[in-house]
Structures are given as C-alpha cells and as structure tokens.
C-alpha cells in the first residue's frame, strides 16, 4: 500500500533538535571542561540509568514523529493509471506499530484485564431481556471460558518474563565481555538496570496486549495504554522544542547584557523584570487566549485537523519559550560579567579581536555548562507544566493526546460509582517515571558540570 509522508512542523523540529543535540554532544567532547563533565556523568550509574530510560522515551516519541497518510483504495470505476488519493487522517509510525491497540476499541469503559464492559447493557437472553455486563469485543475475546483468564494472564506473563530473561542474559554477557572492556570507566550497571526494567516491562506487556487492554479503556473505549504512549511525544515536544525557542533569546540577550553593559544592560534587565513580574500562568493564559483568537480567525492556515493541533502545540511551545527565558538570561548575564573581567578576555581585547569573535570564541564555550544544566533542569518542569496548563484549558489542543488531556478527561471518573481509576493511574505512572528520571538525570548533570558542586564533593 502506498503512503504519503506528512511533515508536521513539530516532527521536523523534534528530529532536528535531537540531531543538533547529538552533534553538540559530540563536538563538546573536544572542549576540555565539558569533556570532563561528560566523563563524570558517564561514571555516575544514576545518570547512565536515567539517561537510558529517557532515551527509551525519546525513541517512542521519535517513532511517533514520523507521520504519513494512507492511500485510499481506488474507486471501482477508476482508470488503472488514475491519481492516488490519500486519506485525511494522519498516522504515525507508532500508530502503525501499535495498530491493534489503536483499532481494537471497545464501546466504553473497561477495567484493566477485563473481559467484560464496565457498564451494564440490556441484552436478550433465554430468560428474556436482562441487564448484563456484556463481553468485550477484543479484551479477552480469545477465551472460551472466562474462568481461564487468570491462567491465561499468568501464561502470557511468564512467556514475556522468560523471554526477557534470555534477552537480558545476552545483554549482560555482551556488556561484561565487550563493553566493559572497551569502555571501562563507564557506569554500565546503570544502563543494565534501566534496560532490565524496560525489557521486563515491555516484553510481558507485548504478550499481554495481544489479548487484553492492560490498562483498560476510556470513556469512548480507546485503549489507555495507547493513549499513554501517544502522550509521550507531546510531553517531549513541550519539554524540548520550548528550549529551542528559549535558548537563542536567553543566550543572545544574556550575553549582550553582560558583555556590553551600559544602556543595553539596562534595557534587557528592564525587559526581563517586566516579563518576570507577570505571574507565569497568567502571562501564558493571556498569550494562549490571544493565540486561540488568531487561530480561529485564520482557518485557512491549516489543511487538516492534525495540522491545526500541531500548530497549536508549537504556538504553546513558543509562548512557553518566550515567557521562560528570563532566568537563564539572568544567569548568563552574571557569568558573562564575571568572564569579561578576566585577563584572557582583556588580552583578546587588547589585541583588537572584534567583540563578536570574543563572545563566540572565548565567552560562549565557557557558558555552555550553565546552558546544559538549565536545559535538563527545565525539561521536567515543562512536562509538569503542560499537565497543569491543559487542565486549566490553556494547554494543548483538546484533540492532542497528552498527559494533561488524559488527566483532564479522567478527573471526573473518580467520582463515578464505582470509580474509574485506570486512566489516572496510567497518566500518573507514565508521567512519574518520565519526570523522575528527568529530575534525577538533571541532578547528575548539575553535579557533573557545575564547578560549585565539584568543590564540595
């Protein structure tokens, strides 16, 4: 079947960002102080472990960032060489991999591993019409008798765990024999522990999802696990693309204020005091409200609903970026002010090196550790912020799957009788793992790159 690749802006940016980060990481190995930071980071098992988890999340997000449109089946009376038409729905590579999860929808709520619906329905039986919990269309449909369910679950679980053990044993031997010898300083135990967790969760899940809705289904019968996996991309885009917006502003203005001083310093300081003094949520709310008006009055800008949601996501990143550059700019300004008084900068100036070259060659590389620390520290805060903003109604488009929209849709479910808890539980655990690994990684990065922490250790 032929497909047409769709390039959403956020896809392009996410891929570009990852490539840029890789190139930057590679190149920064040559800068002495950064190379030392990376080496220190590699020796920390918590850092390597959480980094492995984050890479796993990133892989899910990146697979979800290759979009395509499927070709429609040709019309019955069409000529054989007729132009192929494509459907309006945009899918991603992740959708393709998770095809069963995406398409096997039930009627409404069903609990994790359930074989029956969570709501009663009137059904015709031998004894007339009665209210029953009907069997699910997909969840546990392969079971002839529901009594076998536990045995079936255990069987699938054991298959997964067994396979996971074989895989892990292989990885372990490989790391012992090859990796540890080739890169002895690196904290492989962290990577191994993280891989262990990933494989032990993923493989049993793989076998279980074939027969059940492992995390249940939501109000419209969609699989919650699928939604949670789709939310990862949104979280990553908010956490990463925002920094792409914020970084140039913060670096440019921070260095300009610190290096040139005078009226430029005053102006930039005034600018960020003004922005800082507006409560964050309100500033974002005001900007998002205005963005909504713009999007509503210009429906001609986007061809599909996916493009509209995507544009809104990017606009949110832009707004978050424009409102959050101030703290990094302030840090960079302070550090630049310290650096410009140092003798080697003075010497460069005495030799007549132009200001631009001094900034790029001598100041910027010495600010990089601050930038790196700020970026990883911001990531988890942004992921958490997205949930809150979506709850308030100024976050991502309601049609975009994200942790915020999941929580928002699920928040009334706890007050149902009996309570529907699995959507919240899924959003909670996915977010918790993502944010916790980001936080721990950020701590490790700060310890590795911040010279102030070095002194204390």
């Amino acid at each position: 079947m032929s497909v047409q690749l769709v390039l959403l802006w956020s896809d392009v940016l996410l891929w570009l960002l990852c490539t840029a980060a890789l190139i930057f990481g590679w190149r920064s190995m040559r800068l002495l102080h950064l190379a030392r930071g990376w080496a220190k980071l590699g020796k920390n098992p918590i850092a390597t472990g959480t980094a492995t988890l984050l890479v796993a999340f990133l892989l899910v997000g990146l697979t979800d960032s290759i979009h395509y449109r499927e070709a429609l089946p040709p019309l019955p009376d069409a000529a054989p060489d007729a132009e192929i038409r494509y459907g309006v729905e945009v899918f991603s590579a992740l959708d393709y991999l998770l095809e069963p999860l995406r398409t096997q929808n039930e009627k409404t709520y069903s609990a994790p591993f359930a074989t029956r619906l969570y709501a009663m329905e009137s059904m015709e039986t031998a004894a007339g019409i009665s209210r029953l919990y009907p069997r699910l269309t997909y969840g546990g449909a392969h079971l002839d008798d529901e009594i076998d369910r536990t045995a079936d679950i255990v069987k699938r679980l054991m298959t997964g765990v067994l396979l996971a053990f074989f895989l892990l044993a292989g990885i372990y031997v490989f790391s012992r024999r090859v990796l540890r010898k080739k890169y002895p300083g690196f904290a492989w135990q962290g990577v191994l522990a993280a891989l262990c967790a990933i494989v032990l969760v993923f493989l049993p899940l793989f076998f279980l999802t074939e027969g059940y809705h492992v995390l249940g289904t939501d109000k419209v019968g969609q699989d919650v696990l699928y939604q949670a996996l789709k939310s990862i991309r949104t979280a990553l885009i908010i956490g990463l693309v925002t920094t792409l917006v914020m970084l140039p502003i913060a670096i440019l203005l921070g260095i300009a204020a610190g290096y040139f001083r005078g009226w430029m310093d005053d102006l930039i300081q005034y600018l960020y005091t003004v922005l800082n003094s507006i409560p964050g949520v309100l500033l974002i709310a005001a900007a998002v409200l205005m963005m909504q008006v713009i999007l509503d009055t210009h429906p001609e800008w986007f061809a599909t609903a996916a493009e509209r949601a995507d544009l809104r996501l990017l606009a949110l990143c832009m707004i978050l970026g424009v409102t959050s550059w101030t703290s990094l700019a302030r840090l960079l300004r302070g550090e630049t002010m310290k650096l410009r008084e140092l003798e080697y900068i003075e010497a460069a100036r005495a030799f007549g090196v132009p200001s631009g070259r001094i900034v790029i060659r001598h100041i910027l590389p010495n600010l990089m550790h601050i930038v790196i620390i700020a970026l990883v520290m911001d990531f988890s805060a942004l992921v958490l912020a997205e949930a809150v903003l979506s709850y308030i109604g100024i976050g991502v488009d309601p049609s975009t799957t994200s942790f915020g929209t999941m929580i928002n849709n699920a928040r009334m479910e706890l007050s149902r009788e009996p309570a529907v808890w699995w959507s919240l539980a899924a959003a909670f655990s996915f977010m918790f793992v993502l944010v916790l690994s980001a936080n721990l990684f950020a701590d490790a990065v700060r310890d590795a790159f911040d010279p102030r922490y070095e002194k204390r250790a």
Partner: protein
Amino acid sequence: MLAYLLRRLAYAIPILLGVNLLAFALFFMVNTPDDMARMQLGVKRVTAEAIAAWKAERGYDLPLIWNGQAAGLEKASKTIFFNKSARMFIGDFGAAEDGRNIAREIRTRMMPSLLIALPTFLIGLAISVTLALFLAFFRATRLDFWGVALSVALMSISGLFYIIGGQYLFAKIWRLVPISGFGDGLDAWRFIILPVVIGVVGGIGANVRWYRTIFLEEANKEYIRAARARGLPETTIFFRHLLKNAMTPILTGVVVVIPSLFMGSLLMESFFGIPGLGSYTIDAINAQDFSVVRAMVFIGSALYILGLMLTDFSYTLVDPRIRFE
C-alpha cells in the same frame, strides 16, 4: 529611609507601565477588538452591526492610542489605552463580561484566597525548614540519602495528582471533610483544611531539597568550622549558629512570594470550589473574559513588584551590613 522607599517606589512605576503596555499590546494589538467581538459572539452568525454594538457597549469602539478627532486633552483620554489600561493604575478595572464590577469582585474574593494560601505558606515553610534541617544534620548518612530520594520522588508528581488523590481519599472515601465548597466565618475551617494539607504536602519535596542545599552551603562556612574547633557539640552548632544564619537566605528568599499569596492558587481553588481569586481567574480564562484576565495580570505583577521591594527591605532588616542606599 523614606527617601529609599520612595526611590524604590519610583523604580516600580516604569515596570508596571511596561507590564501594562505588554498586556495592552497582547490584548488589543495582536488581535483587534473586532476579532474579540467575533470570538465572543460566535464566528458563524455575526453581522457587522452586532460587532459594532458589542464594541460600543464595552467601550472598544474608540481608537487604540490616539484619538485624532477629539479635542484638546481628550485626544489622549478618549482612547482604549487610556480607558482600559491606564485606569488600572487607579484601581479601576471596569466591568467583566457578565457586567459585574471587577474591582469589587476582587475585594470580596481576596479573603477566601488568603485563607487558603496563607496557612499553606506558613505551615509549609515551617515543616519544610524543619525537615531540611533534620536532613542536613544527618548529612551524608543513609537517612539523608533516602530523605533526598523521597523529596525528588515527591517533586516528580504533578500537583494535579496530589489534589485529585487527596480529594478522593479524604473527602470521598473517608468522608472526613466536604468535597468542595466554602462557608462563612468559623464554619470555613472544614473547607480550608484539606486544600491546606494538600498544598503543604505537594510543596514539601521541592522545598525540603532547596532548603537542605542552603543549610549545607551554610554548614561549609568558616564560622561553623571555627565553632567545631572550639569543641561545641554538633547540636549547639546546628540549632544555635547554623539555623540562625541560614534563616537569612531562606526568609529573604520567601518574602517575594508573600504579596502574591493574595492571588490564591488556581488549581486548589478550582478543584475545591473556593470562591477566591484563583478560581475567578480560571473561570475568566475558560469564559475568555479578557477584561478580567487583564486585570489579574496587572494585579499579579503589582503584587510581585511589591514582593521585590519587600525583599530588598528585608535584607536591610536582617543584615546590618546593608544600608538604605
């Protein structure tokens, strides 16, 4: 000292003006009043007359900044900027979409907000500082490690989950307090206690970690080493010397948020149905009531600037080396 305060006040005015201009630009220049009218009236069935009527009713039919047709001083005063933005300086916020006076609404809603925010702030501060001091006292032990690990775990949970989970457990399952609402007078405590507890627990992770680093930074200073060299017991050093000196960065650090407590908490108030400023803001955002959001932006920044001034002032109070200059 009076001169100092006046100068600080004078410094605040251009910042407030900047906030005002920014809000003005966001609300009136990025989108014209026509766009807003279309938004409020619904995009589909809207006529030019309906838009004109909407604008006239709310005073949006004037020029933005400069009214060339008016005479004399009215050239500047008969404009949207003067009527909608500049008048906020004298506390005139105009009317909301539902016709109510925003200034009066804010005055009545301040109290419930404060009843939630102030106890949350004070109790949270006391508990966090105590726990942080405790961890710092046992620094580099297993207790410290697990304490920090727990703090990181606690701060990795979205605030939404604390609220949803807390409300579910305490109000729905155990029925200890009402699920939401607010009461008058002494009766209010039943509605206040749960939001306060959740607010304190939700903030503990990040705060404990932050105060712990402050304590540790202080613990590495020379005077602590000197005290240890004098043979003072570790408890005396911690509670007599360290606590006192570390309170300076902690207190001056939190002063900035005190005025902002008036703004209330957006999430807490909307979940628990507290009729405060936070829920007012959320309702305004959901109803796309631009005048209310604009007013809250202005008040929020005014309170923040007040907080900055108080911070400077508190430095001079706790640190005699800094004078009013």
